[in-house]
């Protein structure tokens, strides 16, 4: 599996994401870090991850400036051609700002940064990101964000629900997200954006492994590729 992580100035979970990818991808093909000023992607990538952090300091709107970085043109092309893209936390915000996923992430309902473990209900196992989870299972994955309050117009929400594109819902909504949404899929099911950080609980030493299944799901589909 050939994975890449996009680095924006202000990304701060880029290394964590690369470590998580490397754990499942086999170290013979280490995850590549790609600087935002690049305009082309390396050939032969199987998956691109957009990591958490505060790209461009969260100035203007979270993810808005990053979404207009040179590399994002190529990421959008990659996704449009059926490539797999995972966006976590700020990565999710970049994906909505770049139009790869619908909706927007607004300021948390309590207006404060929230860092804690969150129970996530797996709403679909029908995706390359969630196949190793059991649908309906509640897993423990931490959140750490100031702007994770998912919002979309009623039409979009109806489509997301109708097309089984809600990947995760919060068991206890921490941030005011509409319909408890924690993560959503694109209509070809190949782009996942989620606020919680699976890369932070994928190792027994970190106190939990519920996030690991997401990376195992990806690997089982792509490692032979």
């Amino acid at each position, binding site marked *: 599996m050939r994975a890449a992580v996009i680095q924006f100035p*202000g990304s701060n979970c880029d290394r964590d994401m690369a470590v998580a990818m490397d754990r499942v991808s086999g170290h013979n093909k280490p995850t590549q870090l790609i600087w935002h*000023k690049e305009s082309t992607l390396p050939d032969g990538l199987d998956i691109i991850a957009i990591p958490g952090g505060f790209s461009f*300091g969260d100035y203007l709107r979270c993810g808005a400036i990053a979404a207009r970085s040179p590399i994002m043109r190529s990421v959008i092309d990659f996704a449009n051609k059926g490539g797999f893209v995972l966006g976590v936390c700020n990565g999710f915000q970049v994906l909505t700002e770049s139009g790869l996923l619908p909706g927007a992430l607004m300021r948390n309902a309590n207006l*404060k*940064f929230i860092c804690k473990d969150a129970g996530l209900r797996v709403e679909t196992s029908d995706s390359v990101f969630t196949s190793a989870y059991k649908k309906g299972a509640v897993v423990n994955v*931490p959140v750490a964000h100031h702007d994770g309050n998912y919002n979309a117009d009623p039409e979009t929400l109806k489509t997301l629900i109708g097309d089984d594109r809600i990947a995760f819902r919060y068991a206890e909504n921490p941030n005011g997200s509409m319909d408890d949404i924690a993560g959503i899929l694109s209509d070809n099911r190949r782009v996942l954006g989620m606020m919680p950080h699976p890369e*932070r609980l994928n190792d027994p*030493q*970190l106190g939990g492994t519920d996030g690991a299944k997401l990376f195992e799901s990806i690997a089982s589909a792509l490692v032979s590729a």
Partner: protein
Amino acid sequence: MSNEPEITQELIASHGISPDEYERLLEIIGREPTYTELGIFSAMWNEHCSYKSSKKWLRTLPTEGPQVICGPGENAGIVDIGDGQCIVFKMESHNHPSYIEPYQGAATGVGGILRDVFTMGARPIAAMNSLSFGEFSHRKTKSLINGVVEGVGGYGNCFGVPTVGGEVRFHAAYNNNCLVNAFAAGLADTDKIFYSAASGVGMPVVYLGAKTGRDGVGGATMASAEFDDTIEEKRPTVQVGDPFTEKRLMEATLELMATGAVISIQDMGAAGLTCSAVEMGDKGNLGVKLNLEDVPQREENMTAYEMMLSESQERMLMVLKPELETEARAVFEKWDLDFAIVGETIPEDRFLIVHNGEVKADLPLKALSGTAPEYDRPWVETPAAAPLTDIPSVDAADALHQLLGSANYSSRRWVYEQYDSMVGADTVKRPGSDAGVVRVHGTDKAVAFTSDVTPRYCKANPFEGGKQAVAEAYRNLCATGARGLATTDNMNFGNPEKPEIMGQFVGCIKGIGEAVAALDMPIVSGNVSLYNETDGAGILPTPTIGAVGLLNHIDEMISNVPNDGDTLVLIGKTDGHLGQSALLKELFDREDGDAPHVDLAAERTAGEFVRAAHGQNMITSAHDLSDGGLALAAAEMAMAAGVGVKLNAGDTGWFFGEDQARYLLGTKNADGLIAAAKSAGVPAAAIGTFGGKDIALGDAKLSLSDANEAFENGLPSRVM
């Protein structure tokens, strides 16, 4: 030297320079200073930068040991963790600015300490904050805690350092002077550490990072004075932070260091360009010439005075290997940061400041740092506290319930959930227990962090209070399974010109010195914040100790969560000391009696025993005893596990006494553990069991759910 104000008595006084000090200045330079020169002297000689009141006593602290790579005097201290790696750490206060402007004051405090760490070549891996506020009945407390916590989080979260520990306390003595002490630690290779001493003549001096504005001009002088009713006018002296720039500055600096282009480097903290340039020249026995028109500026028409005293954030000064300028410049262009050659090193002892061809300052450089005034301030020993005589009788369960719901002893969750404690994906113990633990990336080793002090004790008995702050830090490390390596001290006190305040300072230093020697945790860095007073009323003496410990393998880490059915074994000797206790303060608003005395030998034996017992798989969990004694510690363990606990009956001193050198251990093998303790010479006794749904203190009972509710609501119900 045109267009500069005339040097008058008023101007000198407004720079915080005393008449005696001005006489000394005249002797050094042999003429009247220019306005810019007066500003430079003021920046170098103020208390914040010169440590003029504290130096004499700081020198007495033990700072050496086989584990110490670099002690006080550089940007941060460095301690060896083996395998060619080291931890670079320091704690620093940002008290005055945080009271004036809580969000920016706290944020730039975090930014400053992070910069101290990465300036030395270390990537920050952990942060902590020790915060002290006034009572909630005071009009400013709510806005201060909300602003400070948001500022700490706003900066650290964006920068991307996990905040893994800290303290928050409330006491009326902080009503008009809050304390914000920020700690940061970074990881570096021992052969890739960078220092500030310049070397080589004619080497380019390079300005890196954000542009210079007028913010913070005179900030260090402001932080060296008491507050009075003009406080609102001081708001413009507080700097404004930009964590996004800091994050880029850190990445760019570490990349730049890897190119081999850096001869020496120094961050611009208090008194910005002045302090950093003088420091680099002084340590390298060189002079420095700066051309101010080349300094990247954010505002128009800035004067030499303003540029030399600006405390704009996220800036560095570096001496560069000239042959690598192209490579160095490319790194900063990649990160969209300023890179400007603003001067050069010169052979003579001279600090020469030129602005648009005009000499604005021409001073002997060595004299600026080396001849800063030093005072042996008069001090008086703090009188011995009268022993506690009448001990109030309490219902133990009711008293515990009140403590659990109090502002000071309830859960700190409301605070630490606003901090990213996990970024980096190496946090193996998050906030909320004895010490935070972060794995050394890519290894099975880990480093533990804690910060501690009990200001009530320090006020009643500065010597024992100083000892206790170190002992509690040691205990928190041991309860987590870590071996204490070294400490940093952040000394927060009132006006040192008052002999009784100076006496508190001296007493605390003596206690800290004795304790760090006995517990083998030398002081490797630190910071002093004096003049924490408003209209003559000072804070409680608050010498915050930040401590770092090592776990050679994560398996050495001890849980704070016992199992249902475990026996509870109390380690250490219990006399029932209630003087200056949490119980007296919270339930009866009494601060009387002596502070508990610390037996440092017993402290060390007990700590080593706890770690050894875990190594032999004899315990499931551990927790140190401190404020609130046995009852509060047992309740915290029970709540962490979600099971009840039953403790043997006893009197008020048994449940709430604050005798030192004690731990609670959860075990399935109480007999074996007690026998092992006996042969190690450590007092130990089985005093209860975990199980059921109540916290039972003898016959008095509190349900676990009532305890939890009080504990979890204590802060949220007050802060919002």
